[in-house]
């Protein structure tokens, strides 16, 4: 069952990736577009395909996979389906780190300063969330802690952007809060890919430990799970992926909530299978959202987070309602 699902999701990612390459305001014919992408046979078309659409599609896959996998991993560790990097302030804190690196000039001085700063912001948020809503914190602690962390990170991001000498900075608060892949370049791909890849490898290797945690922390430890090591791996893995994704695409919420929720029944609820499935599912969701923003409002930069929130927020309410009905809130 798991293998069929993974194959299906892979096919979906491939199809949407191709569709993403073919959607854009330049209105290129598909054959002409693909020929320009592969052979580089027409100057303008090649520039559009290789420098604008290709990095955008690759980033949609990377960012989506990062958010989906990070959500599934956090949920596996906290055993709570409401744990999502965007909702609990991890993305927001990563955005704050990125904005600080950009506005202090660190990002311009060192290539890696931007992803590392975003990663540091994310680490801080994950640590706060784990400290407050760790093993004995219920859903309500998780959500409240998330609200506080998100609010603080959002406020500080706005403050930093408003203090910037740059006339455009203040208007970019929306980008950092909602996320967008418009006009990204291969530079951003090279910046984010290593961090997301590393985080993915590290987290995917923990699948069985998350499985063991299904039975609670005591049982997991008695089955040989080194909890402290797992926590550290989770913090660094999630922060690395969410940090890099946010640094290049802004904070996109709800991906890590929606994707594992939809896929969980399809993988028999096993966290170890849910991890790779959620990575692929996240890529599917972000690719779809990024195609939709270009189809709905081709001439404007509609933010990705707007679409993911429209899909995700009702689901979030539904989950809260369900959790409440089960008396776990």
């Amino acid at each position, binding site marked *: 069952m798991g293998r069929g699902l993974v194959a299906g999701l892979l096919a979906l990612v491939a199809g949407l990736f191709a569709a993403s390459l073919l959607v854009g*305001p330049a209105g290129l014919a598909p054959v002409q577009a693909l020929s320009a992408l592969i052979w580089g046979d027409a100057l*303008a078309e090649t*520039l559009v395909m290789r420098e604008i659409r290709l990095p955008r599609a690759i980033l949609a896959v990377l960012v989506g996979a990062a958010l989906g996998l990070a959500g599934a991993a956090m949920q596996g560790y906290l055993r709570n389906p409401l744990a999502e990097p965007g909702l609990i302030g991890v993305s927001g804190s990563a955005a704050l780190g990125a904005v600080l690196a950009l506005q202090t000039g660190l990002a311009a001085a060192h290539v890696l300063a931007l992803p590392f700063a975003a990663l540091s912001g994310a680490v801080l948020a994950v640590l706060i969330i784990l400290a407050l809503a760790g093993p004995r914190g219920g859903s309500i602690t998780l959500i409240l802690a998330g609200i506080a962390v998100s609010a603080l990170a959002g406020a500080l991001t706005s403050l930093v952007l408003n203090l910037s000498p740059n*006339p455009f*900075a203040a208007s970019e608060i929306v980008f950092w809060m909602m996320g967008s892949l418009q006009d990204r370049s291969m*530079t951003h791909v090279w910046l984010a890919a290593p961090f997301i890849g590393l985080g993915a490898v590290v987290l995917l290797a923990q699948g069985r430990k998350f499985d063991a945690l299904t039975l609670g922390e005591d049982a997991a430890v008695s089955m040989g799970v080194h909890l402290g090591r797992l926590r550290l791996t989770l913090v660094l893995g999630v922060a690395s992926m969410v940090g890099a994704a946010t640094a290049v695409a802004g904070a996109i919420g709800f991906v890590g909530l929606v994707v594992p929720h939809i896929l969980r029944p399809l993988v028999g609820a096993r966290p170890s299978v849910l991890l790779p499935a959620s990575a692929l599912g996240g890529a599917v969701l972000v690719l779809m959202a990024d195609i939709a923003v270009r189809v709905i409002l081709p001439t404007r*930069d509609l933010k990705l987070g707007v679409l993911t929130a429209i899909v995700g927020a009702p689901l979030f309410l539904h989950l809260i309602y369900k959790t409440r009905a089960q008396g776990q809130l």
Partner: protein
Amino acid sequence: MALRRASSSLAAALAIWAGAVGAGPPERVVSINLCTDQLAMMLAAPGQLVSISRISQDPNVSVMLEQALGYPINSGQGEEVFRLQPDLVLAGQFTSSYTVGLLRRLGVEVVQLPIVSSLDAIPDAIREVGHLLGQHVQAEAVIADFTADLAGLQQARDTPPRAALHYANNYTSGENSLAHEILTAAGFANIAAEAGLSGGGTLAMERLIMLMPDLVISGQPYPGASRSEEVLRHPAMRGLRDRHAGHALADAEWVCGTPAVLRAIARLADLHEGG
């Protein structure tokens, strides 16, 4: 609402008229807009202009920095402007309506000057400010210089090179904008107009590249960092410029309908020889 606005503008008009008839030129003029700052500095008698907006002392956007440094500055807030006890406040069309309304309720005379979106409208703007300040002679002299210099710079070409204005956030200017007229006056065709854009707006980078301009005129970089400006350094744009001339020109000279646009036209015209 409309009636109230009409009656308040009538009141403002009456106030101007009464001021003009009763007390001669205003003695204390405060400007709270970058463009009115420039016109007022050109035309005001010594001591007549008591404060200009803070932004005029910003070297990134001011075309008259040296002169501006000689004036006290304001940040355009009602309370602060009122304390200067002005006879006349010069504001822009899009100055905060709350500020303008507050000052008017306090009995301060505020005139909002419209955005200038064509070269032809520049003499009118100069004339209007000259009239408001009671500096008719000075205004006519500035207009005469401007008209003569513009005629000297304007060039018509059979096949004008196609240029793209490319600013942060892929912002550009199409027909019916000052930037378009500056570009046209300097002998270029504006690709945003080809794309059907009227006024200011965004042109997706993909479309800009597909139009293959001969020249890309990018906005100047500002201090600090912004995602909006990243498009100016986007590899696709750099790819385009590998085959075309690209030049960052001072935004400041393009912003206001003042004689400073002549400098923008002159810089552009030089690109014909260079490119």
